[in-house]
């Protein structure tokens, strides 16, 4: 089941990678969503029979328990992914297909004597009886919002984002191990060919411009980490541009992990000068009560900015594309579609640039932070590091 769930997306992703129809596919997919939303608004709070563009947009951006391909509601074609829940009684594993495309909390799945519902892609323990909308949830109103009151188990499911993470990791390993093999077979005296000639400049760029340029002495140690970060972000940025791809790099959990790792790498390798600068800033002593907290908070704000930057940039790009296509439904006129498609295409092309740019910025700033923490002349370096951070 799981193997199948991973294998089929690989095929599809490769198909879309080589078909080159990245931008053109987006509107079609959205139309399906749009149609169904019009028919299917059944969460009970929105009585309008109109397309909720916000909802459509966020459905694309947020994670989900199944990999949606096309179609809507009960006719939707999607790849079911494993749901893994850590409940009070241990691990529960079942296929997301058992929810039968329900994300409104109306379909209960019973496993190991526990009952679950999927509400807006969050899995809750189901209530004993349905409420007036047929939801096995107890809703409570909080201002204008409706929240389920039910408890939720810890969700370790292989969601769409996790599945894409696996796929991208496998693709990265396949690409780079084959490149490594190519170096072994052709030797180092011949010029690079094929994949090698595409990736080698990027690898050399990361090594020379990002690692060597920002870290300086002793940079070799960090090159594998920086390369992994760079290519993992890059490949997922690119996969995110493909219509059926998941928005992994625009997910805050993913960027959180990467920036926490940067935080750890930076501070574990930091030298005495770095800590001296933070705990005993080169300023009059009476300023220390203000400066020391600022410097200490600065340790966290740098990776925090990394996390927000990548998340916000990728998410924003996706929202813009979807919003532009959404104009068709907003104006309820097909006449607007040429404009929508033209602008969406433009933004998509821009996003291709952003995909590289954000991978570059994340890696560059990571290298800069490491460089600032390990530099011999810590004072000057860390200041220039902070300025560079602000400028991005």
């Amino acid at each position, binding site marked *: 089941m799981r193997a199948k769930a991973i294998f089929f997306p690989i095929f599809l992703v490769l198909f879309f990678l080589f078909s080159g129809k990245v931008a053109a596919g987006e509107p079609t997919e959205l139309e399906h969503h749009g149609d169904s939303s019009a028919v299917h608004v059944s969460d009970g709070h929105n009585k309008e029979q109109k397309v909720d563009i916000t*909802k459509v947009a966020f459905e694309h951006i947020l994670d989900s328990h199944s990999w949606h391909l096309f179609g809507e509601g009960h006719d939707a074609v999607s790849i079911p992914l494993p749901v893994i829940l850590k409940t009070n009684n241990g691990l529960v594993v079942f296929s997301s297909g058992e929810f039968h495309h329900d994300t409104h909390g109306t379909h209960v799945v019973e496993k190991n004597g526990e009952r679950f519902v999927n509400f807006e892609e*969050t899995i809750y323990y189901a209530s004993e009886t349905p409420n007036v909308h047929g939801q096995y949830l107890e809703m409570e109103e909080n201002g204008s919002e409706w929240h389920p009151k039910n408890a939720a188990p810890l969700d*370790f499911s292989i969601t769409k984002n996790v599945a894409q*993470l696996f796929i991208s990791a496998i693709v990265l390993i396949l690409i780079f191990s084959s490149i*490594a093999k190519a170096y072994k077979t052709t030797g180092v005296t011949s010029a690079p060919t094929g994949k090698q000639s595409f990736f*080698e400049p990027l690898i050399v760029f990361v090594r020379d411009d990002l690692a060597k340029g920002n870290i300086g002495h002793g940079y070799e140690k960090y090159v*594998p980490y920086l390369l*992994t970060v760079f290519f993992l972000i890059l490949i997922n940025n690119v996969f995110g541009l493909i219509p059926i791809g998941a928005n992994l790099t625009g997910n805050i959990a*993913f960027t959180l992990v990467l920036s926490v790792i940067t935080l750890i790498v930076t501070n574990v390798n930091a030298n005495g000068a770095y800590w001296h600068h933070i705990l005993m800033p080169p300023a009059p002593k009476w300023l220390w009560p203000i400066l020391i907290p600022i410097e200490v908070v600065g340790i966290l704000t740098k990776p925090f900015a990394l996390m927000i930057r990548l998340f916000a940039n990728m998410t924003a790009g996706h929202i813009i594309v979807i919003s532009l296509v959404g104009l068709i439904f907003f104006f309820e006129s097909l006449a607007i579609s040429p404009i929508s498609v033209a602008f969406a295409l433009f933004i998509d092309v821009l996003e291709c640039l952003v995909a590289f740019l954000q991978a570059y910025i994340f890696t560059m700033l990571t290298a800069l932070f490491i460089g600032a923490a390990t530099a011999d002349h810590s004072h000057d370096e860390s200041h220039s590091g902070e300025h560079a951070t602000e400028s991005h």
Partner: protein
Amino acid sequence: MNSLFILNALVTPGVGLIFWTSIVFILLLVLLGKFAWKPILAAIKSREESIDEALKSAEKAKLEMQELKAGNEKILAEARAERDALLKEARDTKDAIINEAKTKAKSEADRILTSAREQITNEKNAAITELKNQVATLSIEIAEKILRSELSSDDKQKALVTNLMKDVNLN
């Protein structure tokens, strides 16, 4: 679906994704580090080194070539100098030989001339002696003939004696 609710969902990191991302990233770092980055970086580095080395050796070859060229020129100059020296020596030798020959020839010529002169003198002396002898013989013969004719008659004898007597008287 309320937009605030969605925004909340957007900025709330999911536990599952954090968990899987951490695992996958660390695995990826280890696997790629071992099977991709290490050999790739090593290969790129060794290629860069080989390029560097090739450039350096080319530069070295260039220098060597220049050195060789300079050496060649030096050798050429030396050869030229040697040739000049040889030529000079040869010329000197030639002059010396010529001079010697000249001197020798001159002395020989002198010697020959001297001996020739001596011989001439000797020959001349001998010829003179012979001539003198001949003349003497002739003279005697003539004198004999004259005496014979003069003394062939008594008259002539008398006349002779008279003449001789005359001369004697004069003396």
